[in-house]
């Protein structure tokens, strides 16, 4: 009976609204696993060495893909993390900004100012330039 009481406890808090999401996660993951498993069972299995080679349109493969890629992608990822954190900071402001009034607006203007300074810096540094 412990899990039943757990269910009841969950109901009393705001976490109750997340319970259906947990059920849906189990449902969706189960469906996906079942489909992948089923196609593995149903399909034919006539695998040869050539068939399991890495596909490169008939050209002989040279090495594998476990090697460094262009640094640009890494830069984009790092910049995304930085800027996404700043974007997330706007969300609580956007929900409460009516009560914060003009004082809050000026503070956000300053925040956007800092945001833009960083943004200009990375553009000037050429972090987002793709053609050399």
């Amino acid at each position: 009976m412990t899990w039943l009481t757990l269910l009841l406890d969950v109901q009393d808090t705001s976490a109750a609204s997340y319970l259906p999401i947990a059920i849906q996660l189990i449902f969706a993951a189960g469906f996906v696993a079942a489909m992948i498993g089923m196609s593995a069972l149903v399909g034919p299995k006539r695998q040869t060495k050539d068939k399991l080679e890495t596909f490169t349109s008939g050209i002989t493969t040279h090495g594998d893909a476990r090697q460094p890629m262009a640094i640009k992608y890494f830069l984009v990822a790092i910049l995304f993390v930085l800027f996404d954190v700043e974007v997330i900071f706007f969300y609580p402001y956007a929900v409460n900004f009516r009560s914060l009034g003009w004082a809050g607006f000026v503070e956000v203007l300053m925040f956007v100012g800092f945001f833009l300074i960083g943004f200009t810096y990375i553009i000037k540094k050429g972090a987002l330039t793709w053609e050399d």
Partner: protein
Amino acid sequence: MTILALDWFLLIEKLILIAIIIFASLGVALYTTFAERKVAAILQDRPGPNRAGPFGLLQPLADGLKLITKEEIIPTHANKWLFILGPGLAMTAALMTCAVVPWGGTIEVLGHQVDLQIADVNIGILYVFAVVSMGVYGVMIGGWASNNKFSLMAALRAASQAISYELAMGLSLIALLMVTGSLSLRTIVEQQVGHVWNIVYQPLGFLIFFICALAECNRTPFDLPEAENELNFGYHQEYSSMKLGFYLFSEYINMFISSTIMATMFFGGYDLPFVTSHLSIPGTAAIVGIVVLMAKVVMFIFLFMWIRWTIPRFRYDQLMDLGWKKMIPLALANMLVTGFFILWHQNNWHF
């Protein structure tokens, strides 16, 4: 014990709702592939698929059946478990986004009020963002685990494109949140019922959101991860059978869900405009709501397809330039202007 009985009803109600919505979104995705081929055929003045069933209507079922019964190939150099996890994660993430969408009003079943929404969480749209971001992992893991240079390049492109456009997307929604003051999708829809839709307040925000949605769904003109003339086939080129099917499927489900989100956030969701009086038969209002929402969604999906078969693909540097140097400043400006005008209006046009 009455509390327990209520719990069980809620649990069963949610289970049925989840099953219906997941299978409905799968069905919609299945027939979106068919619609895409038909729309392409009409735009290119050819008949399109017309052999399987009347008007080719059984074509998607035949395609699905074919995908399941195909041979599964896991390349010898691939990372086996991550190779399987990739499409699974992409598909699970795609199926999870529909949890917070309000599909209609409330219907009464056996004396209980049933909301046509799986979970009305107060962070609504943030949840959608979080789950959509998980989908990027699916592509990234799949592309890396394939151990194929083309797959890896395509996966990197997909990931960096998705995260770049996610920034502008988040910023464009902040302006909308300033208008609505809530993150809950149901609240946002209820504010629009009987009033003007949010598109009137946020035309630029919608445009930015729509462009970003195209990029997030890897749709033309942003389908760089699937640029077959540069990358063979894209991040899923080592995949076969249902694992390939899941990648393609998750893309169509994402298209469906982003159309739903756009209809909900900017176009009133299940609201039928100019009809303020409630329809007299109980339950009818909710059903009309679902039909109205679906009509809006179909319109958006058609727009996605129309763009795909009309506009050519960007070059990669153009894509990144548009995302970082144009969309983000534009979305920031939109946010500040919106905030300024709302505060100005709130203070009766005084400072």
